[in-house]
């Protein structure tokens, strides 16, 4: 089967697209040795700065660099404005959905989403029922994963409403590009993104009814794969980076242990999953959380960002209903499209999926990070059969989508420059207002033909430009 790919830099006739012209001119003029030397410099700088992630399942906890590609992903400003509006619209609807789900459940009563789809979902948290949150915001920080199909149409691949990560790479990639190639930024107007930590702090502060609340970042610790990002954001915002053991609850209020005695905590930007937050309420084995935190949270004495129980809205089995949510809550047409999705829990859709496995992408509804998925066209017959057995055994745990062709972007590879598949994750901040810094994190699948961009699966990143046109 021949696929047509949408390339970000070149049109179907092989001509450079207008928003890449400046870059293409620069690339043609810059000697190869200089580019190679700058790429080595970037590697060295990233290594020195320790901008790394830890791979799970690696016994030694080795810190790895995420490969950084020096060819940027560029988006014309006019196109970006549509994407931006689409992301804001989507996150607004998802927040309204969460507020509704934990209160009146109008959307269920209206028959738009089947009750068992959400109420029986593992991510639905009974503890959140009836709890009023400041500004009704559940997902303060959201990541919307976008891909482009063969004709360049943007599709939402998934929403990330729990603890979306990657924003530090977005910021570091930009810093690196400006350091290595300042001339590129002088030649054209590229929207700045460095103020993200500022917006994040503002969002976190506005999540609490208190004036000038005390904000902390809660990390699972230095062995977590995203520890670099937690420390980075805490530092950029100028707030404490705490581990569970640094916090304690007394009289339903949260305090941190300091050299000067206990200090009150009002807002916790937690990068810890629901299940680990409070050993008294959730996983009793967890050493990472804070005993009594849930009770304090339910008393309204502390804000958690994101709220507990947001996972029910970014679950892959709820994903197919997001476009209906937008219509239901906002009375608007969705600006960004969903990828058509078959739910294996429905027998008719299941049989379609089983009959077309070699063409489909099958995902676990609970999976993330590119683990536990089948990319039909890239899989061997044996892999497909193994997956078939798993789907039949637990159909409700899987959804399937057509294999999107995913747009490509020129990327440095071993023998020069070649197209590689990419996606895009803009970060949406919801507080007093809903905001997105221009662009987001572009991930690139470095293996030829691969459609999996996750860093745990050998993906890299690129700087993402929104270029004034």
């Amino acid at each position: 089967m021949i696929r047509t790919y949408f390339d970000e830099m070149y049109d179907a006739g092989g001509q450079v697209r207008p928003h890449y012209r400046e870059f293409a001119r620069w690339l043609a003029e810059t000697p190869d040795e200089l580019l190679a030397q700058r790429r080595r410099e970037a590697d060295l700088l990233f290594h020195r700065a320790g901008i790394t992630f830890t791979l799970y399942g690696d016994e030694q906890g080795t810190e790895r660099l995420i490969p950084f590609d020096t060819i940027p992903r560029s988006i014309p400003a006019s196109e970006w404005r549509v994407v931006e509006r689409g992301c804001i619209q989507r996150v607004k609807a998802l927040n309204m959905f969460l507020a509704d789900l934990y209160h009146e459940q109008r959307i269920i009563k209206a028959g738009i989403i089947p009750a068992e789809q959400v109420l029986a979902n593992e991510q639905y948290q009974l503890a959140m029922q009836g709890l009023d949150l400041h500004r009704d915001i559940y997902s303060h920080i959201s990541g919307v994963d976008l891909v482009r199909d063969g004709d360049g149409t943007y599709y939402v691949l998934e929403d990330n409403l729990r603890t979306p990560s990657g924003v530090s790479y977005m910021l570091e990639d930009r810093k690196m590009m400006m350091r290595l190639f300042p001339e590129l930024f002088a030649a054209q107007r590229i929207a700045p993104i460095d103020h993200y930590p500022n917006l994040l702090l503002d969002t976190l502060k506005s999540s609490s009814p208190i004036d000038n609340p005390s904000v902390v970042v809660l990390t699972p610790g230095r062995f977590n794969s995203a520890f670099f990002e937690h420390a980075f954001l805490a530092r950029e915002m100028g707030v404490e980076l705490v581990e569970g053991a640094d916090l304690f609850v007394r009289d339903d209020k949260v305090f941190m242990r300091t050299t000067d005695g206990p200090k009150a905590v009002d807002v916790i930007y937690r990068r810890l999953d629901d299940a680990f937050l409070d050993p008294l309420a959730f996983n009793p084995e967890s050493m990472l959380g804070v005993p009594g935190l849930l009770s304090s949270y339910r008393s309204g004495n502390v804000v958690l960002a994101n709220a507990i129980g947001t996972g029910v809205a970014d679950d892959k089995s709820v994903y197919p209903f997001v476009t209906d949510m937008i219509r239901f809550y906002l009375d608007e047409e969705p600006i960004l499209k969903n990828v058509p999705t078959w739910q294996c829990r429905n027998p008719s859709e299941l049989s379609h999926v089983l009959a077309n496995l070699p063409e489909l992408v099958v995902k676990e509804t609970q999976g993330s990070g590119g683990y536990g998925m089948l990319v039909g066209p890239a899989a061997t017959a044996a892999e497909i059969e193994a997956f078939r057995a798993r789907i039949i055994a637990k159909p409700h745990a899987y959804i399937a989508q057509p294999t999107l062709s995913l747009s490509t972007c020129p990327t440095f590879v071993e023998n020069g420059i070649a197209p590689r598949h990419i996606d895009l994750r803009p970060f949406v901040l919801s507080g007093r207002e809903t905001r997105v810094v221009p662009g987001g994190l572009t991930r690139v699948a470095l293996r030829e033909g691969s459609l999996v961009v996750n860093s745990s699966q050998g993906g890299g990143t690129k700087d993402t430009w929104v270029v004034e046109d």
Partner: protein
Amino acid sequence: MLSRTASDLYWMSRYLERAENLARMLDISYSLSLMPQDGRGDGLHELAMPLLITGTLDDYLERHGELHAERLLHFFALDAANPASIYSCLGAARASAHAVRGRITADMWENINATWLEIRGIAEQGLSRYGMSRFCEWIKERSHLFRGASYGTIMRNDAFRFIRLGTFIERADNTLRLLDARYEMAGDQAEAVSDGTAHAYYQWSALLRALSSFEAYTEIYRDAPGARHVAELLLLRADVPRSLRACTEEIDQILAQLPGANGRPAQRLAAEMDARLRYTGIHEILEEGLHAWLTEFIPLVRQLGNAIHSSYLEAA
């Protein structure tokens, strides 16, 4: 500041200072081992000194059996399996820095991270290929660089104070132990009025050079190094940066600036130690016997370290 953060900052700088001090110990032993030994063996005894001072000689003997120059050096400098090696100290310092990288400046973090990446490279090629003296110089240089990056970039807040606290506690302990060991090595001649033998001369001048105090000594005393003056310089002179007195003075001032009432026990101990040194003359120390005096003082430094721990680092 979070108690855990303070603890990581404190241990980060303690381990870095320790790595530097170990390199200084190693440097002096290595150069002395190359000198003619006047029937005192083949230099192995001298090479074992750093292990004796740090209390790791038994660990070494258990693992390697007999004294062997190359193995001794490797064990002390680069052995990842020896928790007291220079390599392990840098690893521990880097791990602490990693945990608090949000509280130190990018310059400091990149410096300590680069040091860690480089020593792993050195460990791969081995000491003999890299060069012993070059290695010691390199460790000192990295420590200087980190201190410079810290002074030049970090805000003068509690983070800065805990970093300095770690440095001076570690340094005070090290100066005491080094002086004690060299005093013992100088042997019978140590007590002699002139210390006029070549052996004692090399012992004392190597010690002074290891503690970067040779220039200070000649400027102050204009005399060949001897026990009395060396001890006075390294214990009582507040203007010599690696002396005991310089360390206690810094510690006393830093503790006075830290907030909270729970620090009183540590503050009192530091003030007492500093006052004791300030009002002691070298003749009193020598009357008591240098070794006896040092043996009494070393546990005091440890006690102060414990008081800092219970006051600030495990608080709340």
